[in-house]
């Protein structure tokens, strides 16, 4: 990666780190939401569905601003975290949160589709064979929804790599801390002579996004074969 300057390399590694954590941390709540929306009937289900999809529909700058209001140093959650010694605003951890929130609808949708495709009768059959809930989940539900989980994770990773609007609003554009790949592109384009650096990052950006989609399709097809769907 010698063709990258130090600032560009910094932005790339930061983006990879942010995307990695955003993906990992959103998996458990996304799986829970997907199961709740696909299987459970409870009051407020449509409300939850709406909330989950909100980041997809709202202008990213609005999402970023709402995050700032809630998680900023003066926000209710932010103050609480601050007193616990966890700072989020204007930190790379805040970029993780922004990316996770923005990608959340994609992940939930992908997992939800795969949960809906699992025949509850198969899980019933496992229960009649003596499997308690946890075993049914680990041995039946989880493997059968794996294609959706993988697809969701890879899409989330790609989305997190490219998240810009909410991130720059929430955690600004601090080199080495919150200057992710798209923020760096934006910054390079603001200064004269920055086009070359920006172009190199654009190439990486395109490659990562396209690669993620191709890999997710490939993995999903492979896993689908393994679980006997096709």
């Amino acid at each position: 990666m010698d063709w990258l300057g130090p600032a560009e390399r910094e932005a790339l590694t930061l983006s990879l780190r942010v995307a990695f954590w955003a993906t990992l941390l959103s998996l458990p709540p996304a799986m829970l939401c997907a199961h709740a929306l696909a299987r459970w009937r409870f009051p407020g289900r449509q409300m939850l569905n709406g909330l989950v999809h909100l980041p997809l529909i709202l202008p990213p700058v609005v999402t970023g601003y709402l995050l700032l209001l809630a998680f900023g140093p003066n926000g209710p959650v932010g103050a609480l975290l601050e007193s616990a010694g966890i700072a989020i605003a204007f930190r790379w951890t805040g970029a993780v949160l922004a990316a996770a929130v923005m990608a959340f609808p994609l992940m939930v949708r992908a997992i939800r589709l795969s949960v809906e495709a699992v025949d509850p009768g198969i899980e019933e059959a496992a229960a009649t064979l003596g499997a308690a809930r946890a075993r049914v989940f680990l041995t039946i539900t989880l493997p059968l929804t794996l294609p959706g989980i993988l697809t969701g994770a890879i899409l989330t990773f790609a989305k997190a790599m490219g998240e810009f609007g909410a991130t720059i609003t929430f955690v600004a554009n601090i080199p080495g801390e919150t200057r992710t790949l798209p923020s760096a592109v934006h910054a390079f384009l603001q200064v004269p002579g920055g086009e070359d650096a920006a172009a190199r990052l654009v190439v990486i950006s395109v490659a990562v996004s396209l690669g993620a989609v191709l890999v997710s399709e490939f993995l999903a097809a492979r896993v689908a074969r393994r679980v006997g769907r096709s």
Partner: protein
Amino acid sequence: MSLSVRLKHDFGGFALDARFEAPPGLTVLFGRSGSGKTSIVNAVAGILKPREGRVVLGGRVLFDSAGGVDVPVPRRRMGYVFQDGRLFPHMSVRSNLLYGRPRNAMVPFGRMVDLLGIGSILDRRPGGLSGGEKARVAIGRALLREPELVLADEPLAALDTARKEEILPYFERLRDEVSVPILYVTHSASEVARLATWVVALEEGRVAREGEAREVLSDPEVSPAGAREAGAVLEARVRKHHDDGLTELDAGGVPLFLPRVARPLGASLRVRVAASEVILSKDVPVGLSALNVLPGRVETVRTGAGPGAMVALETPAGRILARVTARSVAALGLRQGLKCHALVKALAVAPGDVGS
């Protein structure tokens, strides 16, 4: 081990209110679709929670709405063979079979695999199996769980006639060789005739009649699967295999000729004679191609709103049901006590109607 069931449940527009006691052996829940058979089995398995009732298996209370008992599904120790198989698509046949196997298993895995003839497909996935293979794996999986009760919900419904013939003997062997009680759901009278030790006939969520297969199927008042499916069951013994491909049976002293039955001489059989395949004649028939002529006496004549009538005939072989037209009843003057002959074509008895 016996099963005692008492259930009440409301499904919008349909009420289930059933109560029966199943003795050891194979008990068939018999009725047309929508009569509540599957709901009963699901309630026994614990998948359906009835509004009220009590389910007791061999002294173990599984469900009791009054006592607040509801044993969770995994701990009911049932071997459920589902109508649609419900094999785990992401696991090999072997993993499917081993899924419910208890830690201190008694039944040798290899013996069950041999019994069901699935040794060669253990490493395949369910997706690539034929219908008959899937059904056998589903049966094996339920049995290797070493259940206290086998629940089978129309396990043959999805199979064609040839595959049915392939699977039915396994249930006959299960009934005769394994001591596990079986609750078996079907709407097929011939499966009832072949398999049932005890029959619970259901109509619209209620038990219409229960008893031994021979009694219930030969009862002209009960035809839970419709008059077209009605037919009495005779008990017979193999007397002789003839060179022309026919097997001669002895049914209460009356010879009965059927297409070749692959059973040894002296073996006892159940033969279901479909009511719609029986012809009645007042005089001893001559110059007819029908091989089987059973002399008897009319027991009851039951006419309904339609053009058909159900005639029950007492013969030395047992009770025979004949479905004839009301016009024939009038023309022959059929009434209680009248001497009459029942004619049954040898080929009208399907192989599926003959069981051990």
